[in-house]
């Protein structure tokens, strides 16, 4: 059972990576959104430092949202998704493999890039590590939640904007905990609690949300 999923994972990653501009677009989007904050707020380092955790997290959430828009769309259009649903592997695991491939190729670059952007906004030392760590734990949850929205809005009028309306409210806990962890670190307070809770969210989301994604896909394919 693992083998087909492994193949699917490789296929999805290579599909995303060969169309290099997709990865570049998302990364560029992430960077540009963060660049907008200093431009809008002003270059004072103190001010920027206070908004840094929130700015990076909001940018990551938006980048995840726009990149997930097309998670299932191409496979759905050419009928691959239907074949995947008919395959003997549970659809939930198939969906999980797809989300994993998506996160590895489009979510992980953001995590890796985040310390540099955090540094640009004035975060230092341990705060950068906490920022990257919180994104590492949080962005997979965002991807899983977003995948539910992507599956629900397949083939629906105004899919992208609708998906934002459906999914952004559900992003709130992750956003609060993720930015909260960095804020705690900035005040030299213990940040482990926030990270633990983020880990707990991931632990809950990992088994449950693939089921929801599979349910949403079945509704769409029906």
């Amino acid at each position: 059972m693992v083998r087909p999923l492994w193949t699917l994972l490789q296929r999805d990653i290579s599909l995303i990576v060969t169309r290099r501009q997709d990865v570049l677009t998302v990364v560029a989007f992430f960077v540009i959104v963060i660049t907008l904050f200093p431009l809008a707020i002003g270059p004072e380092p103190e001010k920027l430092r206070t908004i840094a955790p929130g700015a990076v997290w909001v940018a990551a959430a938006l980048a995840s949202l726009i990149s997930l828009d097309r998670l299932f769309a191409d496979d759905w259009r050419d009928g691959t998704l239907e074949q995947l649903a008919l395959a003997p592997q549970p659809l939930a695991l198939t969906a999980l493999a797809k989300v994993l491939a998506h996160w590895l190729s489009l979510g992980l670059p953001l995590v890796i890039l985040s310390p540099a952007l955090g540094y640009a906004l004035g975060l230092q030392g341990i705060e950068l590590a906490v920022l990257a760590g919180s994104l590492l734990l949080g962005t997979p949850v965002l991807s899983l939640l977003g995948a539910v929205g992507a599956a629900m809005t397949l083939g629906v009028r105004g899919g992208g904007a609708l998906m934002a309306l459906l999914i952004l409210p559900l992003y709130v806990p992750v956003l609060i905990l993720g930015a909260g962890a960095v804020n705690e670190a900035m005040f030299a307070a213990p940040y482990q609690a926030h990270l633990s809770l983020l880990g707990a969210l991931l632990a809950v989301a990992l088994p449950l949300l693939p089921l929801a994604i599979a349910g949403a896909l079945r509704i769409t394919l029906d």
Partner: protein
Amino acid sequence: MTGRSIPWLKFTAPANFYTLAQRLVPWLWPAAALCAVAGLYMGFFVAPPDHQQGDAYRILFIHVPTAWMGMLLYLLLAAYGAIFLVWRIKMADIMARAIAPTGALMTFLSLWTGALWGAPTWGTFWVWDARLTSTLILLFLFLGYMALHAASDDREKGGRAASLLAIIGAVNVPIIYFSVEWWYNLHQGVSVMRSDGPSMADSMLAALLLMIAAFWIYAGAIVLRRAQAEALSREARTEWAQAAAAGRLTREQRERAAVGIEGNRPPLESGGQT
């Protein structure tokens, strides 16, 4: 269907539901009005002014019931969504869809009255406080449900996707609440559901309970009415719906329509469940 012996399953047939609602709603309107008048009288003329907030607190008699109704209706919406997803009972989707606008309205009203209450007591219309923020997110969840339901061309499909969303949202509501709670808190503490009894005067409590009853009954009446309209529009081509719209639905027509649920569906509906 094994559940045939349970009488309430009878009302999963839109025709039976329609008749039931038709009988209930005329009683609910005056009951809601009566409770509201009594509650408002108690609230404005009997209940004493608050020793800190003076008369400003009296908006509580609208604010608290709407806030509770908003949350309750969301849970109810998710419950009907779950029923629809599991048993494919069309009436459950109709009910869920009928609940959503009232739920959104209640949530909006609780935010609005909260803002009006906040102005004299906190000195601001809006703060990014935990309960305000989570109520705002609840409003977004309602709007998302309605948008997703309306976005699909296929009502059945849209209903199922929206039901799934409602369930995920309901699981998320406590998580959102606690995460936001943790994040910042200014809102006053719990004062009705406390283990040492409510911390308010008896007449205030009576007024509040009357207003809560009024909102419950009002919500019931308006939701049933909306569900009736939705049931009619979904079954517009059937015999019972046309008779009901003309105001003369007979018992025979109703029973024939109810049997049709188990046997042949009307041609308008595709019963495809694969």
